[in-house]
């Protein structure tokens, strides 16, 4: 009995800790407009990713926590190959040259979008970097995370899987 109570207490503590550092669930909020260009200058909007779960990450090349989590996003991309998840990293308020300088050192297989004038950053009301939004296949915001995480494991992976399971025909 004592062991059971200790286990319960430990579980509660761990759950509380995970929640404190973790994802904030949103009540299926409509997403703000995303209007950006990729590194080739092609315009991109959320409509380009409709029908898939979207991980939209706001980052900058000068931000150490942003760069720390990038490898885990790349591992997540590889892990999710063939599944309806799109990872999009939107660089906040830097020049294309600054972004390309970073990408020359760090090979990433997911699309990078540019927001040189910070207009998307303001529209999405991003006040800290990194900030990440998880959108469902209808383009609605379901989770927000402020700060970095390891995207290919733990709570992050569970949250993404939960959104993918809402697409039973494609989740496998």
């Amino acid at each position: 009995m004592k062991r059971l109570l200790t286990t319960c207490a430990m579980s509660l503590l761990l759950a509380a800790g995970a929640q404190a550092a973790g994802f904030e669930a949103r009540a299926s909020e409509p997403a703000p407009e995303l209007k950006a260009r990729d590194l080739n200058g092609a315009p991109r909007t959320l409509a380009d990713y409709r029908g898939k779960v979207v991980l939209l990450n706001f980052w900058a090349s000068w931000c150490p926590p942003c760069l720390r989590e990038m490898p885990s996003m790349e591992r997540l991309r590889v892990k999710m190959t063939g599944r309806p998840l799109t990872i999009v990293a939107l660089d906040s308020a830097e020049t294309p040259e600054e972004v390309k300088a970073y990408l020359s050192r760090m090979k990433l297989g997911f699309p990078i979008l540019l927001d040189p004038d910070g207009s998307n950053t303001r529209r999405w009301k991003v006040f800290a970097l990194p900030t990440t939004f998880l959108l469902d296949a209808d383009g609605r915001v379901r989770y927000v995370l402020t700060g970095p995480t390891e995207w290919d494991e733990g709570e992050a992976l569970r949250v993404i899987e939960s959104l993918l399971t809402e697409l039973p025909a494609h989740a496998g």
Partner: protein
Amino acid sequence: MRFFGFLLFGVWACSFAARADLLDHLRFPATGTQLLLWVASERGRAEPEVQAAQQLAAQGVEAWSLDLTSAYFLPQLPSSMDDVPVRDMADWLRAAQAGGKQVTAVAVARAAVPLLRAVASLEPAERQRLCVLLLYPNLYMTAEPLAAPDYLDLEILTGLRVHVLQPRRSAATPWLPGLLDHLALHGATASATVLEGLREGYWERESPTEFEIAESRRMDAMLLRELNAWGCK
């Protein structure tokens, strides 16, 4: 070795003892007509801030350096700055003005909150004689993703001239126009300069760039350049 140099310099600076009834601060006397009040951020005072004050004094600009976390034994958190007694800060500003020099108060990050609240409590004539420089001020009450920012009520700042120094490499930079609007809404005349190639607190970063290291060593020059360009007298 650098640490001991810093320590000895601190002892020397403290020998110019601040008045006992004033907030505990370091003074770097100079004979010029300008007095710069430096209010360190919620992270406390770092060595390059002391060096900048020393370098300013060597160029004739008297400097007083205030670390609120140390003065009040506060935890090094943004919320600590919100608990600083306004009257103490206002008395400190009045004591600075009493010397007859042109006073510019500089506050870093959340330290902008107690400074602006103290300024708001001054008499209009006292406020108009003051220049305020804010380095990447944090004036948010709440700032949550997907929601419009909620700024703190700064009360009346009519007649105050405020200049914001905003490092380019900061998540707050896209929000600079909104911040200036908020200051103007409270009656201040607000302007800004973006500091290219720098991050917030660049003088105390764990992994600074070479440019940040170089800029940390010439903070005095940056401050004098910005003060001259701004022209607040």
